[in-house]
C-alpha cells in the first residue's frame, strides 16, 4: 500500500504521535496463540444444545404441530413453539420506529420461506437435539409461492406477508422511496442519446468463518448473561427485551470479539430464543448456526434489480438519470426497507446530474429474508451505475475514464437529495488511478480539482 501524501496536504496535519502510525494490533497476539476468546469458547457445565426444526416449504399453512414423540426422546429437556414466545411477532427496526412488526420468532400458523424456524428443541447433546428434531411432526398445507420480484408485484400474486398486506414495503412516500430533482423528462427530451439498461444480482452470503450464535448462562438471580457475536450489543439486547417481554436490566450481553461479520450478524435471531430456553430450563444454552444454516438460513445480501435510464449529450454531460431499484427482502423486512431507502439516497452516484428521478422499492418474496451486508443498499447499485457509465461512454465514443471526469461531483455541487457536496475526492482518486494504471487522460482532467473554484 502506498499513501499519497501529496494530495490534500494543505488540509491535513501529519505530525500526530499515534494517529497515522502503524502500531501493532493489540488483539493479534491472542489470535496467533489461539487464546482470543470467541463466544463459542465459553463452555458451561450442563449446557443444552438448541436445534431448530425448519420449514421444508417455501410457503405453507401449518395445520398442526405434534411434539409428543420428540418430547419423549432421551436427552430432550424442552421443546419450544410459538406459544412459548411472549412477544412472538416482531421486527428489529422497530427500535428506530421502522415498522410494522412482521416476523415471527417461531412460525405461528404459517411459514413464508423454506428454512423458517418452527420448533426449537433443547437437549443434553447436539445429537439428541437432532434426533428429537427429526421426530417433530408438522402438518403443512402447501401454498403457492412467489420468488420473482416482478411476479410478486403483479396483481393476484400470492401474498407473502400478511402484516404488510401487499408484496412491497409501504413508505410514508408510498410504494417506494422517491427522489425528485429537476425535470427528468425535460432532460431526456433535450438529450442527444438515451440509454436504458437493466441490472440484476442474486443473494450473497457474508460467509464469516465463525457462524452466528450465542451461549447463554443464567446468573442465578433471574438475570441472563448472553455471550454473543452480534454486531450490535444493545440493538440485540433491546430487541430481546421486547421479544421476551423482559426488562433489559435482566439481560447482560457480552461480546465484541467476532469471527467476521460483514453485516451478517446484525439480525436478532439466535439470542432471544436461546435466552428463552435458558429461562425456561434454568440451564445454560448454546444456539450456534451450522455452516449450512449460515449459508442458507442467515440473511444474505438482498438480490437487487436496478433499471437505469440516462440522457447524455455528445459532449459527455449526463443531463438526466432515472433509477428504479428493487430490493428483494425475502419474506420479512429485517433491515431491507432501510437498505432500499439508502439506495435512494445514494443514486445517482458520485456525479452531478441536473435532472434526477429515483424510485426504490422493497419487495417481499418467499425466500430467506435478506438483510444488511457490507455496502448495504449501495454495492449492487454501484455495479449498475458504473457499468452504465461504461456503456454511456462507449455510446458517445468517449474514453470511459474521461467521461467520468466530465460528470464527477465537486465541492458545492447540489446532489439529487438536495445536499451540497462536501469533501469530494472522486476526481483525485481518478487522477491517481490514471497514473497507477497507465491509463492516460487529457491534461485538462489531470488539472481538475474537487475543491470549489476560488474557495
Amino acid at each position, binding site marked *: 500500500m502506498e499513501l499519497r501524501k501529496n494530495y490534500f496536504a494543505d488540509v491535513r496535519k501529519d505530525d500526530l504521535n499515534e494517529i497515522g502510525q502503524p502500531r501493532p494490533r493489540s488483539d493479534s497476539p491472542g489470535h496467533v496463540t489461539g487464546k482470543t476468546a470467541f463466544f463459542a*469458547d465459553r463452555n458451561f457445565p450442563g449446557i443444552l444444545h438448541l436445534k431448530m426444526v425448519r420449514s421444508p416449504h417455501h410457503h405453507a399453512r401449518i395445520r398442526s404441530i405434534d411434539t409428543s414423540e420428540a418430547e419423549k426422546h432421551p436427552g430432550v429437556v424442552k421443546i419450544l413453539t410459538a406459544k412459548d414466545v411472549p412477544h412472538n411477532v416482531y421486527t428489529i427496526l422497530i427500535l428506530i420506529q421502522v415498522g410494522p412488526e412482521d416476523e415471527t420468532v417461531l412460525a405461528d400458523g404459517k411459514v413464508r420461506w423454506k428454512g423458517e424456524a418452527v420448533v426449537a428443541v433443547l437437549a443434553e447433546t447436539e445429537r439428541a437435539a437432532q434426533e428429537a428434531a427429526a421426530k417433530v411432526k408438522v402438518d403443512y398445507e402447501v401454498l403457492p409461492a412467489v420468488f420473482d420480484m416482478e411476479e410478486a408485484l403483479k396483481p393476484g400474486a400470492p401474498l407473502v406477508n400478511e402484516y404488510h398486506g401487499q408484496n412491497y414495503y409501504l413508505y410514508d412516500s408510498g410504494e417506494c422511496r422517491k427522489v425528485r430533482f429537476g425535470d427528468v423528462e425535460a432532460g431526456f427530451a433535450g438529450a442527444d442519446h438515451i440509454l436504458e439498461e437493466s441490472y440484476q444480482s442474486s443473494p450473497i452470503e457474508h460467509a464469516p468463518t465463525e457462524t452466528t450464535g450465542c451461549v447463554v448462562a443464567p446468573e442465578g438471580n433471574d438475570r441472563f448473561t448472553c455471550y454473543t457475536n452480534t454486531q450490535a450489543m444493545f440493538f440485540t439486547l433491546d430487541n430481546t427485551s421486547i421479544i421476551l417481554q423482559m426488562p433489559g436490566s435482566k439481560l447482560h450481553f457480552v461480546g465484541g470479539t*467476532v469471527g467476521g461479520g460483514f453485516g451478517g450478524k446484525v439480525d436478532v435471531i439466535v439470542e432471544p430464543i436461546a435466552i428463552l430456553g435458558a429461562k425456561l430450563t434454568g440451564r445454560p444454552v448454546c444456539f450456534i448456526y451450522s455452516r*449450512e444454516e449460515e449459508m442458507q438460513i442467515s440473511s444474505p445480501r438482498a438480490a437487487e434489480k436496478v433499471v437505469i435510464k440516462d440522457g447524455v449529450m455528445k459532449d459527455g454531460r449526463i443531463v438526466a438519470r432515472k433509477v428504479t431499484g428493487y430490493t428483494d427482502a425475502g419474506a420479512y423486512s429485517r433491515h431491507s426497507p432501510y437498505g432500499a431507502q439508502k439506495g435512494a439516497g445514494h443514486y445517482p452516484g458520485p456525479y452531478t446530474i441536473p435532472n434526477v428521478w429515483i424510485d426504490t422499492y422493497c419487495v417481499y418474496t418467499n425466500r430467506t429474508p435478506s438483510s444488511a451486508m457490507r455496502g448495504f443498499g449501495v454495492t449492487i447499485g454501484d455495479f449498475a451505475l458504473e457499468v452504465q457509465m461504461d456503456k454511456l461512454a462507449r455510446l458517445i465514443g468517449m474514453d470511459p475514464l474521461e467521461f467520468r471526469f466530465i460528470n464527477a461531483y465537486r465541492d458545492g455541487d447540489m446532489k439529487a437529495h438536495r445536499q451540497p457536496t462536501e469533501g469530494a475526492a472522486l476526481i483525485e482518486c481518478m487522477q491517481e488511478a490514471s497514473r497507477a494504471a497507465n491509463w492516460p487522460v487529457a491534461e485538462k482532467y489531470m488539472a481538475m480539482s474537487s475543491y470549489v473554484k476560488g474557495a
Partner: protein
Amino acid sequence: MAKVPVQFTLNGSEKAEFIDSGTTLLQALRDKIGDTSPKGGCHQGTCGACSVIIDGELRLSCLTLAETCDGAVISTTSGLSESGVLHPLQRAFLDTFATQCGFCTPGMIMAAKVLLDHTPNPSRDEVVEALSGNICRCTGYEPIIQAVLTAARANSQNAA
C-alpha cells in the same frame, strides 16, 4: 451411555479422558480438555479452522473421531509458543498483519507449520497449496501467504 477411554499426547502433555463414543476430536479438545484454539467453522471439513497436527500430519479435528486418536501425538496452535516465546510463524503473522478477525488464524498456522516442518523453504505455490484447505474471509489471503514466506525466511536465517 458407555464412555470410551482415550489417551493421547497434546502439545507435549499426556491426556486421558473418558468420552462418549462418536465424539469428534474437535469436541473432545474444546469441551473436555479445554483447548479452544481449534475452531469449529463448519464441521464439514470445508473451512480448515479446526486443523490440528496428528502424528505429524495435518488433519481436520471436526471429521476425526477422538477415539481413533488413541496413542496419537497431537499439536494445536495453543501449544506452539514455548515459555511465552512466539513461534516464528506466530511472530510472522503479527509482523505482516496477517490476522483480522482471528477465527481462521489457529487453523492457518497449523497448516503452515506442517508445510514448514517438511519444506523449510517453500515456494509461493507450495504455500498456496498448503493453505488451500483453509478459508479466510477477511484478508484476501495475501497477508497470510506473506506471513508464511516471512516465517520461512526467518527460519532459514536462524539456521544459517
